[in-house]
């Protein structure tokens, strides 16, 4: 536009900048790097408490170390290193400026960190919703050996009256609740006007504020196209470490199944010397104790499959985690029941958790099973959870790895 040069030597212009998208383009490059970085540190990430406890829709912060631009720089967190600050007048020696981060690595940002770059820590935190993160975690995962099916209807709509509201259609008025509202209101009125002394209560007219309506949700009633049995050892020998590993595995397994498959039923089986079917909450949060008889859970699994899934095109998966601390005498039975189960279902994944000792009798027995639907994994430290998840749900990679 305007560009007259003058003796003061300036011009003022107003160009069309709408095609200036450079920042956006490189932002895409950055996003791709974030995704790669997340995949690289996945085994640490999937054990992160802040992610394990996050709710759907919540934004999680993923600390990404490798996306800090590398360079030689000073250690600003050196506790012996003074920093320069600036006050608003009459600051005295000994004044407290802020709280220091709990440790030297300082993941908590102290107040002093916020203000300047002096004591700052530059760990990049990618912010994303739990769903976005889950999609990166589950990239390429699947339920292996799923039988294709054509015959069944997979979901069906159903109506359930399960909510009460103040507005609605007269045909859906909830008479009982409306009446209760009217009584409550009028009782309150009379109380306020000291009329209850007379000892009589007469129900007057029902006002529009008293009306309550039934309302409904359309629910999708799944016809399960796949069933997954989550089986976990809850005996006394499963310590904090073992439980944490098993639960982390099942947490991501459940999340994965619910994210990717809308027609999967998950049933939870817990066992010590006896096995029983429990709710999801009991499965994840209840501790048990006592001895172990691993065969019990496989027996229960066989019973459930025989009883509830007689169709030959049912897809059934079972995953079992234990510390392997089993009665030696029970190992043979366990292998027998596990083999029976394998003949009935698509896949069995067995994970054994050992922090210290090398192997168990159960491990020796279980790893002798040969069946194409059988996968097993030994977990020694938390980083093995992600490896195991990938071996179970990305079996193609496993085949490649084992043939390589």
């Amino acid at each position, binding site marked *: 536009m*305007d560009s007259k*040069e*003058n003796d003061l*030597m*300036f*011009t*003022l*212009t*107003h*160009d069309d*900048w709408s095609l*200036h998208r*450079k*920042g*956006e*383009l*490189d*932002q895409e*490059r*950055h996003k791709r*790097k974030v995704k790669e970085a997340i995949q690289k540190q996945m085994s640490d990430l999937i054990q992160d408490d802040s992610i394990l406890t996050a709710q759907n829709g919540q934004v999680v912060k993923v600390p990404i170390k490798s*996306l*800090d*631009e*590398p*360079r*030689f*720089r*000073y*250690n600003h967190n*050196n*506790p*012996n*290193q*003074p*920093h*320069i*600050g*600036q*006050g*608003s*007048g009459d*600051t*005295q*020696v*000994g004044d*407290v*400026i*802020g*709280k*220091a981060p709990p440790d030297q690595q300082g993941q908590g940002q102290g*107040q*002093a*960190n*916020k*203000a*300047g770059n*002096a*004591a700052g820590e530059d760990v*990049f935190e990618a912010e994303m919703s739990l769903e976005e993160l889950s999609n990166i975690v589950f990239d390429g995962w699947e339920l292996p050996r799923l039988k294709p099916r054509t015959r069944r209807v997979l979901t069906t709509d159903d109506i359930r009256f399960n909510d009460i509201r103040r507005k609605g259609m007269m045909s859906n008025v909830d008479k009982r609740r409306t009446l209760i509202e009217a009584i409550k209101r009028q009782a309150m009125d009379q109380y306020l006007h000291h009329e209850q002394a007379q000892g009589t209560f007469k129900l007057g007219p029902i006002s529009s504020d008293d009306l309550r309506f039934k309302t409904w949700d359309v629910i999708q009633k799944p016809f399960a196209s796949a069933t997954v049995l989550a089986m976990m050892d809850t005996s006394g020998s499963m310590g904090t470490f073992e439980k944490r590993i098993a639960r982390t595995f099942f947490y991501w397994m459940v999340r994965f199944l619910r994210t990717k498959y809308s027609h999967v039923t998950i049933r939870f089986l817990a066992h010590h010397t006896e096995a029983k079917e429990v709710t999801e909450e009991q499965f994840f949060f209840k501790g048990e104790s006592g001895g172990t008889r691993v065969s019990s859970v496989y027996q229960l699994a066989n019973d459930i499959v025989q009883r509830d899934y007689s169709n030959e095109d049912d897809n059934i998966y079972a995953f079992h985690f234990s510390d392997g601390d089993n009665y030696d005498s029970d190992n043979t039975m366990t292998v027998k029941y596990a083999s029976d189960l394998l003949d009935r279902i698509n896949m069995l994944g067995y994970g054994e958790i050992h922090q210290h000792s090398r192997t168990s009798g159960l491990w020796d027995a279980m790893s002798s099973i040969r069946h194409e639907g059988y996968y097993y994994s030994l977990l020694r430290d938390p980083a093995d959870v992600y490896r195991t998840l990938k071996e179970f749900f990305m079996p193609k990679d496993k085949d490649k790895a084992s043939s390589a």
Partner: protein
Amino acid sequence: MHAKEYERLSRSIEEITGIAKSMGLDYFPMRYEVCPAEVLYSIGAYGMPARFAHWSFGKAYHRMKLEYDYGLSKIYELVINSNPCYAFLLDHNSLIQNKIIVAHVLGHSDFFKNNAMFSATDRSMLDRMSTFADRFHLFEHEFGEKVVEETLDAALAIQEHIDPHHRFGRMQGFAEADGLMKDVVSFIATNSRKLADWQREVLWMIREEMLYFWPQMETKIMNEGWASYWHTTLMHELDLDESDTIEFAKMNAAVLQPARGGINPYYVGIKMFEELERRHGRDAIFEIREMENDVSFLRNHLDQGMVEAMDLFLFQREGEYYKVSSKQAAQVRDLLIAQRTNGGFPYIGALDGDYRGRGELLLRHRFEGMELDRKYVQMTLPHLYKLWGKPVHLQTQVNGRILTYEFDGKEMKVA
């Protein structure tokens, strides 16, 4: 921006520029460009309007945009050291805000033109960077985005380790008394046996860009102080009504706000210039803006009176708190100088390109009181290995002990 607003802005620029000229500011011809916020943020993220593509710029852009969207921070000004000098004004700014920015960037333009540190900078860098960007793009096309990105990652990891002072035309600079060659980038570009020609070219281009940016890094306090001094001075010469005066005061307070956990260069710079003008007159500060950089500026002029007036102090960790540990001018000054020395980067040079007689690379960190961040050393050495192709070593000092990091392509050793 409406034609009418545009016309008013143009008249204001004319008025401010006239006053600046009459008060002795000696600036480059100015090119003001009105643009939307996103453009300002992307130029801010890249440091220049046209620069090569790299994810780190995308990261910076993303952060700046996020902070802008959430109202956490705002760029007020963006000005390019070039002849003519480009300055960007936000189309959403009020007239008074844009006036302040015009006054401020005239100060920068004067500083770019007259400060000795800038005398060797290429004033047509804008075009050259755009040419560089084309080269990088061509490389991406020819060798693949991934390889170019890896090379750039590595080059950017050491980009600060150049020799900003021209030494009789020698590319690598002279070896110093202790045998150190400061220009690590050119040392590697010249001596690495691993790099392809295009990769050497990448290093040379990155080095050229850093040489251009370097004077801005070593005059941060002075440059911002000078520009703030002038926007304050010029605005006082204008006839402002009450609401303009209030808005000016608000914006000025935001820009010059002291930072508690660090220092605000705008604030320290303007306070020092104001005090020096009070003591020695305006001619004296014109001379200072011509001759000095941050290190000499602080060493020659920051005294106890200024430290007290600005309430500068040292603080240190004591148990779980940060506490003020000193208000002595000498101590504050020494640390401030240490932080500003070498543009605020550790002084690292190349010592030997045939270390242990096996063609390995030895770098030395010249220890000046502040230790290196170990985590970052371990992140950076693998990039150097990529450029050098053989084991790389870095000597530094930790707890008074000489420590050598070695990365041989597989593992990191510290001895």
